[in-house]
């Protein structure tokens, strides 16, 4: 039986917009296929895990205050996370998790939170807390080899700049900056995005991209995922696409 090991970091703090749902969805989709999905948690005060033993590391989003709390601890994990990433561990990063892997995050008061610097982008929040990118968002991504419309909800003050390889192009909503063309950051083993909803709720292709990556990364022969019945998820997405794009 295939097995996936996930490390969910700061689940107790970075879980503002139902982001833990992503873990529930990955577990569900693995379970339906007989893939064992182990989800370990790490938070402040826990023993330092050995990061490269994980197939996927997940970090969700939180409010500014929570983000300040975890940033010092996250920096302590820098070497471990970097080693894992270099050795092929998948990084799945939402909102705050996305921001903190860049060079820095400057909050609305001008305080600079140092990021892990794994990637070149950086994030600046506007000085007015009222200026946030909030609303439904549709992006188009080609990470699976075919164009897929991904629907979620964005809610971020931070404007992320210097993204070299975005996750997708924005069809509706804001993206990395207000009214920007692109959303998120992508590498073959990195999905970093502002999409909540949670992101995987109605975008099964993205879940399966990650599951497929994880079970194949150490296997010699490519393993194909069995198809699941995703009618509810796809209908759910279609309703939103029609509402947002066909106005």
């Amino acid at each position, binding site marked *: 039986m295939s097995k996936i090991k996930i490390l969910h970091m700061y689940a*107790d*703090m970075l*879980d*503002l*917009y*139902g*982001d*833990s*749902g992503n873990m*529930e*969805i990955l577990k*569900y989709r693995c379970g339906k296929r007989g893939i064992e999905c182990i989800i370990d948690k790490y938070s402040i*005060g826990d023993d330092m895990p050995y990061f490269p033993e994980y197939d996927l590391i997940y970090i969700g989003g939180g*409010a*500014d*205050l929570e983000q300040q*709390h975890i940033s010092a601890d996250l920096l302590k994990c820098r070497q471990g996370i970097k080693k894992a990433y270099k050795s092929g561990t998948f990084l799945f990063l939402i909102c705050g998790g996305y921001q903190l892997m860049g060079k820095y995050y400057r909050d609305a008061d001008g305080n600079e939170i140092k990021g892990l610097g794994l990637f070149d982008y950086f994030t600046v929040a506007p000085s007015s*807390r*009222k200026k*946030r990118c*909030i*609303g*439904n968002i549709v992006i188009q991504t080609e990470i699976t080899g075919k164009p897929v419309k991904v629907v979620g*909800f964005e*809610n971020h003050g931070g404007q992320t700049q210097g993204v070299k390889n975005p996750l997708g192009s924005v069809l509706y909503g804001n993206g990395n900056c207000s009214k920007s063309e692109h959303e998120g950051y992508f590498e073959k083993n990195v999905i970093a995005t502002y999409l*909540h*909803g*949670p992101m995987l*709720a*109605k975008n099964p292709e993205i879940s399966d991209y990650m599951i497929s990556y994880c079970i194949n990364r150490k296997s010699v022969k490519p393993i194909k995922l069995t198809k699941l*019945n995703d009618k*509810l*998820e796809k*209908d*759910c997405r279609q*309703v939103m696409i029609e509402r947002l794009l066909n106005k």
Partner: protein
Amino acid sequence: MKRLLILLGKIIVKILNLLGRNAGNLPGIILWHLSGQKCCSMFKVDCPIIAVTGTNGKTSVTNCIAQLFEKSGKNIIINREGNNLDTGICSLLLRHCDMSGRVKADYLILETDESHVPVVYSQMKLETLVVLNFFRDQLDRNGEMETLIQKINGFCKTFDGNLILNGDDPNTARLGCANPKNKNVKYFHAEPYKFATEKIFEASEGRFCPFCSEPLEYDYYQYSHIGKFICKNCKFGDYKPYITASNIDLEKPVFTANGHKYSPKLNSIYNIYNMTAVAGVAKLYNIKPKITDSVISKYTVNNGRMETFMLGDRKATLNLAKNPVGANMTLRVMNEMNGDKELLFVLNDNVADGLDVSWIWDINFSIFERVTRVVTSGTRAYDIAVRIKCSGYDPEKITVCPDLDDAVNELARTEGRKFVIANYTAVQPTRQALKRYSENGGNDDE
């Protein structure tokens, strides 16, 4: 200028009334624009103002406090319909003031939206502020929770009136430290009830001390992050309660506070907190115990908060759940009931609901017991269906009916006990659909 605005406002109210329209908010909006955004500043209010704010329970507590004074023979003004923004309060006062803007009453009792507390009460003098709780709710409209708390905290820094705070919610209790000179800070508190837990049961806010950032330690959690907490480092949470609910027994339901035994009608722990807040106000204003007792024991609601409908011979209980805390409470009540049951969940994403529906992923559906079927409806019928499916519930047993009448017909098609959960803007349409079915027996679609 003020007189002119008031005259104009009153004319608008008259016109709207003549047109048969509700003047709950529009006159205030117009005056807000004409008065440089200070639409509550033109009134002369000589009587004490009592305001109630917080995420959940504002309407209930405001109505109960109003009854305390009404039954004591006082003349009160209250925004009963829940128009709780500055524009709604302005519209209310326009209907009750004279031509000079003077408002005559013994007490003004105002439900006030969390984000509008500083706005309204920088324009009118507040005597007492009751803060019930802060939960994740409509985050996309209000911005992040911390911003919201900061706004009210900023107001409390210079406020020296009565501050009645939920002492078991660190998010509200912290407001008691905003103005160290304020001698009128009072906390209400509740002892653990039967289902209180040692560990946190649902997703929540405020795990850290807002003053020194150390993790907060809890003796017990009542629900969500509400419970007896303390910061071992700086002693935040170490206060003497002004009023305490004890001997809580939800099966009867009864509780004791301030030496009196109360028998409320609604049997949820958050109703006990609401009623303890009411008893706290009664204590502060020396309301006669007999009156307080009759208010607390008689209070019930007919607005989709545990309201019962008969669908033919099938009993359906409707409950409003506008955030995960409310929804989790309803699921608990549903589970604590024996036998099979079916659930209709109506989820909308209108502006007043918050456009973001991701909060449904904080609902703990894995606790479902003997739920034989689920019907979903509303503008986000599919989202809630997917959410329930991914909790491990058999998708074959889920039926999506975005149209409400279809959904109610589908729900009533089979035998058995029914539960209905609807979020904010879904409640009234759902009540109407349930009523239509009750009255027509579901035959109107044939």
